[in-house]
């Protein structure tokens, strides 16, 4: 914000600094290079208006944008049974890295969960936040995911999981790898309870996370352009010494190769998930959310501008009546 500092008077500047403004008021679109005012991004659920690029979104913002009326109850999740099981020290001490991530995000680890409504259907939603050590999967995230899924089983509610992760948390060694079978046990409990499990793959979802709960959903949705894959692109390039094809490991590529059901624009996510949950649980979606021309098709990755308002504006309280 150099140019602001240079032209505004000191008094105003101190006022500006006092406010909780992000360091950069202007955010560069990674795709088009266009500079976007952060308020505009925030208002648009962190989708760059012109290019449609889906930026990373904080877990709390994601929940607020997803649930009916932005209303939800957070579910308290357990932490790691042990903080630093290997007493690991890389370039930094692992315990310091955790502390930094907690200060940065205000969360205990990478997974948070909440209960709320979508199109009037009660659901449990979990979000994996890439901001917290790359959304990596370790003991804490594993316990949180298991607890959230078990909570959904106890409450008999469908489970929606927004995943984002760089993979296993290597600072925990094989204990992080063990989260693959551990979380898979929890997915099986959801399935045995007959509850829909909807996975939303967001940018990026890679490594071990893709090799467990992220690929075991009843339905796999993906945000446009998200990087999704098991092996890192660099590793593949080095192994096979070939250039990777255009769009490799992107949402659309996974859809074309049969791993993802639909690529869905963030603005349409509520509507798509709500509709699916409604059909799978055989409960009609509430009238006031139903779109006159709702169509769920594999090409719903473009925002449906005409109907957005009804969906995103505060819905009537009636939606939350049991």
């Amino acid at each position, binding site marked *: 914000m150099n140019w602001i500092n240079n032209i505004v008077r000191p008094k105003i500047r101190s006022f500006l600094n006092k406010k909780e403004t992000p360091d950069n008021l202007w955010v560069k679109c990674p795709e088009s290079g266009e500079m976007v005012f952060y308020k505009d991004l925030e208002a648009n659920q962190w989708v760059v208006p012109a290019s449609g690029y889906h930026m990373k979104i904080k877990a709390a913002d994601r929940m607020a944008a997803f649930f009916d009326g932005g209303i939800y109850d957070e579910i308290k999740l357990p932490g*790691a*049974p*042990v903080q630093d*099981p*290997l007493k*690991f*020290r*890389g*370039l930094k001490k692992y315990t310091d890295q955790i502390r930094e991530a907690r200060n940065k995000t205000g969360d205990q680890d990478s997974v948070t969960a909440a209960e709320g409504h979508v199109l009037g259907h009660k659901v449990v939603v979990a979000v994996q936040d890439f901001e917290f050590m790359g959304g990596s999967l370790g*003991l804490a995230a*594993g*316990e949180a995911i*298991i607890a959230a899924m078990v909570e959904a089983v106890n409450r008999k509610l469908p489970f929606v999981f927004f995943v984002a992760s760089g993979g*296993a948390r*290597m*600072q*925990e*060694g*094989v*204990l*992080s*790898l*063990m989260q*693959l*079978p*551990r979380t*898979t*046990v929890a*997915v*099986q409990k959801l399935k045995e309870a007959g509850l829909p499990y909807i996975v939303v793959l967001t940018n990026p979802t890679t*490594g*071990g996370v*893709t*090799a*467990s*709960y*992220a*690929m*075991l959903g009843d339905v796999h949705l993906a945000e446009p352009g998200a990087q999704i*894959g*098991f*092996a*890192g692109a660099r*590793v*593949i390039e080095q*192994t*096979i010494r*070939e250039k*990777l*094809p255009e769009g*490799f*490991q992107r949402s659309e590529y996974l859809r074309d*190769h*049969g*791993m993802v059901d639909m690529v869905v624009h963030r603005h349409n996510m509520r509507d798509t998930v709500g509709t699916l949950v409604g059909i799978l649980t055989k409960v009609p979606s509430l009238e006031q959310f139903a779109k006159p021309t709702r169509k769920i098709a594999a090409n719903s990755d473009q925002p449906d501008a005409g109907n957005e308002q009804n969906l995103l504006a505060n819905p009537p309280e009636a939606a939350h009546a049991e």
Partner: protein
Amino acid sequence: MSTLSYLDFEKPVAELQGKISELEQIGDSEQAVDVDEELARLRTRAEDALADIYSKLTPWQKTQVARHPSRPHFSDYARHLLTEWTPLAGDRKYSEDAAVQAGLARFNGQSVAVIGQEKGSNTESRLTHNFGMARPEGYRKAVRIMDMADRFDIPVLSFVDTAGAWPGIGAEERGQAEAIARSTEKCLEIGVPNLAIIVGEGGSGGAIAIATANKVLMLQHAIYSVISPEAGASILFRDAGRAQDMAAAQKITAQDLAELKVIDGIIEEPVGGAHRHIETIMASCRAEISKFLEEFSGMPRDKVREHRRDKFLSIGRTLA
């Protein structure tokens, strides 16, 4: 001790072995020199040196032993431990993947289903088996075999030995991640008991896909890790050259993992590693497999499943 390729830390043994060979030649010749006493002395020294080195292998040295080209591979285990070994091919969806061998056999006369990762032992077989790095089809074949075992109420034995799942364009296109996830899921789902033995390298997701078992054992010098020491070092230390440090920091040895309660037991190797006395390691494995089959024989299906799930859910929790 036959002609073996020596690892760098085995140099003292290699030198002694060299001297022994020289003396043996002298002894064989017609000259009237008595070398027997000296030979016996050298042999004892060589054995002591080997025992000494192998009693205090570092995690990085164990990594090298686990990857030793002469280390017994799945085909050796199949030949020594199984009868009527009948490998089956193909995932019934796309193709056959020889990195994963799977099929039916008998162990001590009892029917078993067997899954094993095969690295190959010469250039040709290494290429055939893609160095033990499976593609999605390998895991889907494993799922197919586990399904069959479940249907016919046959226990499953898996032999884990892979650097990891194959990182390639085709593998990604055909859903490597999904294939691994489904295989892990199947391991957890079957109502028949399964045993996994990590015989060499247990490389991350590529290993867990067939190593999610009621009982998980590791050979004494095998390793099991979330990422190879080399790749881990390049990410966490920004220096691939520090693989030795990463091997130690990541706790990848059987001894460390038994302590962390990730595995259920260790199968001791003969002095100098499994590759020096294949018969000995096979006898130990045979005993462990028999023990496993006995332990789980007659256990009802839901108990088998519950046992496995509870075991994995408790990993990490018991460290608190």
